[in-house]
């Protein structure tokens, strides 16, 4: 199992579009993906789960991957957070 804390850098938060990108990318990996935020656990491959976190700019969350390709998956998703999900803002 690998885990890492990340911060939402998108000014408009982790809204529908970045959530959709996150789920699309994470779903390409085999590993199970859980996001932990304020004591909530959601499946990171579930778009509705991610959206209901309603994560705003500056929110902190922990990404947890478990499975054969966990390291690769974590690195890829952490990159997404860093690049603000390729949003312009």
């Amino acid at each position: 199992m690998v885990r890492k804390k990340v911060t939402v850098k998108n000014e408009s938060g982790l809204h529908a579009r970045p959530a959709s990108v996150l789920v699309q990318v994470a779903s390409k990996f085999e590993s199970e993906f859980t996001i932990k935020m304020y004591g909530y656990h959601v499946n990171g491959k579930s778009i509705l789960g991610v959206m209901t976190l309603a994560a705003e700019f500056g929110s902190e969350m922990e990404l947890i991957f478990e499975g054969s390709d966990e390291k690769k998956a974590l690195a890829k998703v952490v990159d997404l957070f860093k690049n603000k999900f390729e949003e312009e803002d």
Partner: protein
Amino acid sequence: MKTENQSIDLQGKAVSSGIGIGSATILSSKSITVRPDKIDPNKIDVHLQKLKDSRELLLSEYKVLKEESRLQNAKDILEAQIQTLKDPEVNKRIQLKIESERHSVGYSIFSTLNDYIQLLETSGVKWATERAVDIVAIRDEWVDVVSENRREVTMEKGDVIFAEEIPPALMVKISRIKVAAIVMEKGGDTSHAVILSQSLGIPCVINTHWNRYQVEKGMLVIVDALEGHIIINPGDQLLVQYKEKKKRELSRVKKSLKWAKKENITKCGSTFSLRANVEFLEELPKISLYGANGIGLLRTETILFETTKFDVKEQVEFYSKVLQATKKESVTIRLFDAGGDKLINDKSSEANPFLGWRGVRMLLDEPQLLEKQLEAIYRVSGKYMGRLKILIPMVSRLEEIVALKKIAKKVRTELDTGNVTFDAAIPIGIMVEVPSIVMMANKIAAHVDFFSIGTNDLTQYTLAVDRGNEKISNLFDSYHPAIWKMIKMTKEAADMHQIPISVCGEMASKPEAAACLLGMGINDLSMNSSAIPYVKAVICSHTLKELKELSRLVLKEDELEGIHKLFSKWKFTY
């Protein structure tokens, strides 16, 4: 009562302008009923299969729609819908409801998605509450499919669509057929249906109670989405009139866009500024389209009502987006201008809201709200030095200005100690819309950085006419000689103290009135952005001398009719 040949007139809110004429098509919204019925244990497999089949069916439909769609926002909407259908958690939960709770597939889908809808609706985050409608749409469509009760969508090119509300996927389908117009009973300004109709240029009117009348398929309909007017079964004469109006409108739009690109310069070479009045983020692309010089009036009521806690952060985000979209131009933010009746948790109503607790009166009574807004504005300003202005609404006495400036100073001091970079020199000006301010303008000008005349309210308060009162609404006329004299007084006071003056009311959007204002020396006007090209066309084709002569004659007139006569030659023509 037979309505076949009787014409029906309806009124609504125009959200995407233009004129559409076509035959009515009604999108019925059968309300789906799902009951928590238990199913027979040996039917579980059938229901699981139905779940799978319905999901596959919708997925394949959405994928085709997405492939074929050329609009990026339509593609994004559909992608989110596709992912919702594929959502592993959602599917697991639905399946569990069928298998262990023995609920029907329809109810299982309905109640599972409802849980998410509720979470989104109560999240308190604006984008999340807004997206709840998308999940509602997919819930209803999915339940329709499993109960074999899908809405029949048969529409043809040139139809006028009547609907209660249009779910996103259906809207994408509609956008592919060239429909003439859309009439909706519900629909907010930011619903997908409205945004898509704007980007596609489909005339659209919302908040229309067409359901109360017998609108039937095939009836001829005129949708005038310039005025928010809908006529069903128009007579021949009306039809000819509107066909003519539609033609004029099309050529008007085409020609006006040419003017939008021209320089702001009169025939003799004097310069002037035409700015946009803006309320929603969705309007921002229009600023460059219509050639506006930034924003002369940014209304903040909507954003403030939408953010649950009047959050500084959400406001900062909103203002930043506006500033980014206006490049190097200035943006005048009007502080929250609303009556107390609209404030959350305040249900007390006033007998005379227009003469009541609103604008600066309310802001000074709710210092927290005011301070948060000022804080947000100053916080944004650091990144956009010299581009912001603050406008105080509904001022009626000097003390209000002094009190507000004191609070602004307090906010600045706090930010200073917090080491925040901000623009300490943001000009603070007032709306001139109450006659008392006009009478005192030469004193007041010494205390403010600029004047902005709001002609609608100034007219209402000066002429003692309530616009909403049908019996006297014909008396509401901003061209009244008294209004011109008040504008002149305000202009003279501004000149005496050398402060800038602008007009941001509806008057500025009328080419003839704009010409007169320029003649009076007011060369900074702000209006609904789509009016800018017409105003520009008239001003650019005259010399300053001609404009001055017009204003001299207007100011000399004692009767309203005389002013209208003078203006008749100045309307926009081709």
